[in-house]
């Protein structure tokens, strides 16, 4: 951050804290969203206890949690979850970095856009899973092909988001930078980067979501560990509870990763957050 940007730190320190986590503690109204899933789970459990439903295809919540607890106790859950996470992380980093670089290039240069974008759009039209046979031929069946597949899945939403964000930066704001005689580097750092950041964060979050989607595909294709393997193993052995346990683990992991990404970006996006508060202070 430049010295100019910190000019206000003193006067800002006097202002009440904004966008802190304290303000985001779940309110009773937010807990309303839990009512439906809890009621369904409870209803299903009761129906199962009364012998109204067949437990083989969809196990009752109590059995799913018993399975989860067993997986956690034996350490299997940690092994599988960390294998999955490592793949998503590697694929996400490769895919997102490539997408940000290429998106920045095509977003800021019309020549680069004409040169590269049609090819990338054509590649985007290929369903990502269709690459699988080729990736397996090229990279074998182990980690490289899995990470590559995830990277491809992450790449396109991030690329589109970054390119679109740069192309749609308000020219009027850029002109302010010109009036203050910013050179190209300063213009990028002090105007373009903060201007595109909100869109880039959204693109990264949707890219991460796709990363989780593709890690399942990659692990179902063949893996000896990972939550996707747990799914496949459950299917082959007829262990529905294990499948549902893996699904829950996916949901929790995905939500945590998305939350971490959003939380990491929040300090830079506080200026967007202030809307609700403005009325109260104004």
């Amino acid at each position, binding site marked *: 951050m430049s*010295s*100019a940007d910190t*000019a*206000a730190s003193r*006067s800002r320190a006097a202002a009440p804290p904004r966008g802190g986590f304290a303000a985001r503690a779940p309110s009773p109204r937010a807990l309303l969203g839990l009512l439906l899933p809890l009621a369904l789970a409870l209803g299903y459990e009761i129906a199962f206890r009364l012998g109204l439903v067949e437990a083989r295809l969809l196990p009752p919540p109590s059995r799913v949690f018993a399975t989860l607890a067993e997986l956690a106790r034996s350490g299997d859950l940690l092994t599988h979850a960390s294998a999955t996470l490592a793949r998503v992380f590697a694929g996400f980093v490769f895919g997102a970095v490539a997408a940000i670089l290429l998106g920045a290039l095509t977003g800021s240069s019309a020549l680069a856009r004409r040169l590269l974008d049609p090819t990338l759009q054509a590649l985007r039209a290929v369903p990502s899973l269709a690459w699988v046979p080729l990736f397996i031929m090229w990279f074998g069946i182990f980690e490289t092909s899995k990470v590559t597949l995830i990277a491809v899945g992450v790449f396109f939403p991030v690329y589109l988001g970054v390119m679109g964000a740069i192309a749609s930066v308000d020219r009027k704001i850029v002109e302010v930078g010109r*009036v203050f005689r910013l050179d190209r580097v300063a213009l990028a750092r002090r105007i373009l980067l903060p201007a595109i950041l909100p869109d880039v964060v959204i693109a990264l979050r949707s890219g991460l979501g796709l990363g989780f989607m593709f890690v399942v595909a990659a692990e179902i294709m063949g893996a000896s560990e990972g939550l996707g393997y747990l799914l496949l193993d459950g299917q082959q052995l007829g262990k529905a509870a294990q499948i549902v346990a893996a699904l829950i683990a996916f949901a929790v992991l995905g939500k945590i990763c998305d939350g971490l990404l959003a939380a990491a970006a929040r300090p830079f996006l506080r200026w*967007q957050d202030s809307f609700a508060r403005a009325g109260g202070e104004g």
Partner: protein
Amino acid sequence: MLRLSGLSKTYPNGTQALADVTLDVPQGEIVAFVGGSGCGKTTMLRLIAGLEQASKGRVELDGETLTAPHPAVGVIFQEPRLLPWLTVAQNIGFGLSALSRAEREARVEEALLRVGLAGYGGRWPRELSGGQAQRVAIVRALVARPKVLLLDEPFSALDAFTRASLHEHLIGLWEAHKPTLLLVTHDVEEAVTLADRVIVLQPKPGRIFAEPTLDLTRPRDKVGHDFADAKRRILAALDGSLQAPSPTRPREEIAGAWW
């Protein structure tokens, strides 16, 4: 001294926005430009600001030819154009990177105080009203102490009451360091209220039509006879500028002259 000599601008699509404007403005003078649409007011400011290049003629400030944005020339746009990700104080300090932090903060504080926004330094631009935001924009341009300040209809989006209070703020700020102000406006009353000289431009292509005399003292007595008289003279000149025959074939103003 700001000197425009033979300043002309023809856009690539053939629209001649400005034709041969020659004008000397002594340091510290407030000049208002009024004129119908297509009279090249905005184009003229953009040329002086260095945001566009003149097709012919040049802009000189104290003998130095201006072709690109210059530290001694500040610009205030029609919209505040504050950077939404910076606080009010950071926005005001945006152009002061060269100063030490202490000096920058002192200037920002002083500026906020002067426009009645003390204590607003930590706010985000979206928390401000339109008038407050434009005050911040004016201050942002003025803290760098430019010799020339260009204002492109900076008050046109504000209600009459806010506009009047901003006029006072602007004059108050101007008195501190006496920069040259070039103000483009649609509002004749605003021109008479603020300016030492009012220049009426004629459209298609934009050029100087007349410079009615003002003969007014500061502070302006807005209900006085002289004020009304000055307004009447300017309105008459404006009327004439719109009826005068155009030397070149009239062309529709194309959206090339947006800010």
